[in-house]
């Protein structure tokens, strides 16, 4: 998580699940350049969230769950997108994406998570399935294969600790990069 893409973590249960919220705003630059239209339905182009970034949100959610399982001591990176099925509905400005990651498997080398994404319309309260995504994560220090990575944890940075704390979850001082700065 060298950049933080989720707004808040609403649920974090060790070895089980992580739920996070990502609100979509028209102020986001990416929406200024990404439109969907449906000529057959006569729908004008409207700004929508690219699904690649929805996968980024899922990856961060699954990455947090994987990191939490090892007390954020491993460097967790996305290694594989096994499957990403989208229902086809659009996520536009003013809506919310709710990411839920379930831990499917974990061992010393990495993990597999099964993620669901729901689209929430805060105005009506409607909740619709948006995507199902299967991801794999690597604990990079255990899979170096001769590659060199920085010693410091570049995944769970001070920005991430801010997110965790702001979401109401305790941050252990022993893994908090903000300590001593």
């Amino acid at each position, binding site marked *: 998580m060298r950049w933080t893409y989720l707004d808040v973590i609403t649920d974090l249960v060790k070895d089980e699940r992580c739920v996070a919220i990502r609100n979509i705003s028209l102020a986001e630059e990416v929406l200024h350049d990404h439109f969907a239209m449906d000529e057959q339905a006569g729908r004008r182009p409207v700004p929508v969230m690219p699904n690649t970034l929805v996968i980024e949100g899922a990856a961060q959610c699954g990455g947090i769950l994987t990191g939490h399982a090892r007390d954020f001591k491993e460097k967790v990176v996305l290694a594989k997108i096994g499957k990403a099925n989208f229902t086809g509905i659009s996520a536009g400005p003013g809506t919310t994406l709710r990411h839920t990651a379930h831990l499917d*498997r974990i061992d010393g080398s990495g993990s597999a998570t099964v993620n669901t994404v729901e689209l929430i319309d805060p105005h009506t309260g409607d909740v619709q399935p948006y995507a199902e995504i299967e991801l794999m994560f690597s604990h990079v220090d255990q899979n170096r294969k001769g590659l060199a990575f920085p010693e410091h944890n570049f995944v769970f940075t001070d920005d991430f600790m801010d997110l965790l704390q702001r979401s109401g979850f305790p941050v252990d001082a022993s893994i908090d990069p903000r300590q001593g700065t």
Partner: protein
Amino acid sequence: MTENEVFEKVRTVLEDALGVDEDEVTKDATLVGDLGAESIDFLDIVFRLEKSFDIKIDQAELFPDNVLNDPAYVQDGKVTDEGFALLKERMPHADLDGFADNRDVEEFSNVFTVQAVTRFIQARV
């Protein structure tokens, strides 16, 4: 469970993990050379095998390539006698005859065949 039943389940696992077609997953196919597996795919395969056969697998038992990271067992890019003996001991499920000739580390991945995975599982179920 017969070897063929194990093979059919292994084949499904490999189709899902590697995104390959059923007819590509022959017993002689190598995971890396023929089916395009990369390092993270080995973890994916282990997880899927565990789930499919309801067993616990240590990745280093099925794919003990960590032996090759030990300088004591590799010299000038070739596996030493000691290293080869260790591989034979740890990989009874694999056919190492072809590898025995040149023991080139770069070619070690060729011993990871669909048949080797099938035999490994067969011994566990």
